[in-house]
């Protein structure tokens, strides 16, 4: 079993160098585009502008966040809405993924999978405008309801939380379905059949066999969807308008409208902390590790 391999160390070193070379672009990308900007973000967020070109170390940006209810209300609201959107996406995506992976066979399966992809061939902006065309006061749904005699006047279906939620779930669906389909594809049919054979029904088999097996896919789908939702700017702003109260909108306002980079940075950093914390908590609660999820 442990026969000494004289060439082992040489091969090992060669391998290491190869890996290092291949990983260089990745490392450069990580350092230059992820790590450095975030360190800078942290530094900027921890200074106070005294006068033109003069800065001092201070927590004032963070204090501002905690003392202004609008800010942290938006923060908490964004987090809850994102968690809810993630949960809804999972709830809708799971049966869809199960159907694609386990019920469909052969060609029909690929076709259905492609159909799920089609909405993503147009940009998020266009997709969201699509919803606006349907839901606005003078939109398709409103007209239809009036024509059918169900309502008296035009109805406005934009600019409320339900619409934001619909938009967010719709936008995220693919990112949930893809990892779920791939993890469910790897579940051997005989494991499911054995579950029924051992006296299970659809509910117990799903709970005790399918979900435990799909857990890594569920976790990775949820992480991606949660992060995308939390950091989404377009969908909440377009569908929710001014009432969207999405935290990214606050960051945008600080950076672009008010040109207050210090507060903007602090908010950006807080958003990063929030998403990291919730992802960590989610993994802890579901007893998954990040490596399970990725691998």
């Amino acid at each position, binding site marked *: 079993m442990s026969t000494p391999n004289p060439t082992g160390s040489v091969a090992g070193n060669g391998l290491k160098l190869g890996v290092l070379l291949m990983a260089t672009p990745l490392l450069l990308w990580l350092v230059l585009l992820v790590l450095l900007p975030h360190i800078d973000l942290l530094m900027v967020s921890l200074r106070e502008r005294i006068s033109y070109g003069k800065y001092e170390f201070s927590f004032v940006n963070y204090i501002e966040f905690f003392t202004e209810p609008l800010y942290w209300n938006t923060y908490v609201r964004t987090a809850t809405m994102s968690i809810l959107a993630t949960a809804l996406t999972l709830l809708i995506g799971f049966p869809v993924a199960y159907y694609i992976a386990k019920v469909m066979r052969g060609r029909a399966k690929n076709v259905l999978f492609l159909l799920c992809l089609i909405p993503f061939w147009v940009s998020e902006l266009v997709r969201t405008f699509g919803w606006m065309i349907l839901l606005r006061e003078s939109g398709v749904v409103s007209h239809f309801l009036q024509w059918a005699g169900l309502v008296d006047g035009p109805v406005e279906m934009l600019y409320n939380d339900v619409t934001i939620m619909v938009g967010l779930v719709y936008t995220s669906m693919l990112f949930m379905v893809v990892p779920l389909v791939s993890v469910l594809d790897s579940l*051997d049919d*005989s*494991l499911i*059949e*054995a579950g*029924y*054979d*051992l*006296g*299970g*029904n659809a509910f*117990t088999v799903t709970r*005790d*066999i399918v979900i*435990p*097996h799909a857990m890594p896919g569920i976790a990775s789908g949820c992480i991606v969807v949660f992060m995308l939702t939390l950091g989404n700017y377009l969908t909440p702003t377009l569908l929710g308008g001014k009432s969207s109260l999405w935290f990214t909108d606050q960051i945008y306002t600080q950076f672009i409208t008010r040109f207050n980079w210090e507060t903007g940075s602090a908010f950006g950093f807080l958003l990063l902390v929030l998403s990291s914390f919730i992802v960590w908590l989610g993994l802890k609660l579901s007893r998954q590790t990040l490596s399970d999820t990725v691998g």
Partner: protein
Amino acid sequence: MADLKLNQIRKSYGAVDVLHGIDLDVKDGEFVVFVGPSGCGKSTLLRIIAGLEDITGGDLLIDDDIVNHKTPKDRGIAMVFQSYALYPHMTVYKNMAFGLKLAKTDKAALDERVRAAASILQLDQLLDRRPSELSGGQRQRVAIGRAIVRQPKVFLFDEPLSNLDAALRVQTRIEIAKLHQKLKSTIIYVTHDQIEAMTLADKIVVMNAGQVEQVGSPMQLYHHPKTRFVAGFIGSPSMNFTRVKITASAGETVTVEMPGGATATLPFSVPAGDIGKEVELGIRPEHVELDRTGDLPVTGEVEVVEKLGDSTYLYVRLENADRVTLRAPGHSRVKVGETVQAAAEGGASHLFDGAGKAYRKTNCPAQYSADE
């Protein structure tokens, strides 16, 4: 404990018919083996019995109840899957307890039954392991244990030994036979391996292309195959076949013309209408003996010699280019290229008509008969 009855069971996938009307009776406590070439529908039939596939036509009865539309859960049947189908996220104990947990068995009874099954299968030491930490043979035993704890009316096994290496396969085969003696439960076992079928079965069901060819005890199938397919499938090395022509039929005997032009008179009852027809004559390698004379003489050159220790198989090429396999004693010194003479008794042979159905043998010597 249960009787099982299959009544004209048919199964189609879309336009493809897989099973064409299967009739079968399985008695309480019987060990029944479905055997047949790959793709003949054995697994499909087993899965129909388990309730994992819908029945297209016909009825399935357990203890005289039609169970066509009952879920697997309500049939009292436990299946051991070819791939074992153990749950990777559960320990051996949990895997074995899973069925009882679903049945809401109380904790103490559950524990007792799991431990009892574990001790029968020598899994006591492994209860806390995960399936990934077990060898193939151990996984197989867990899969069997998971079925045993449920105390089902019928056990179903789908090629349970096919993923094991040769030595382990023999050992596990013996364990399954012992288990059957101990539990005295009804077992339906699927395999494509005729040796497994011969060694384990009380009753063998030979299947071919979605149909039952013959049902019988291992010795009945060996000595009295009803079709050419069964004759060729059961026995190793398989039976020799040659085309012969019927020249005369006299009630209890028939005269056939062999490929070389010689004639032989054999103990079969052949209708007069079949005179002049080409039929097939079969004879098992172990029934052709060297250096003797008999109703069916064979002379030819040895092409291949296979020495198995206790016996030697000779692959002989006849003058008319037909090939015949015969069994010689283990101490035989016959070499490749030698010309040998051998012969078989007419009573050992089998005769099949154009459709592959066996003619009735009128006089069967005791050593070629399954009758006690």
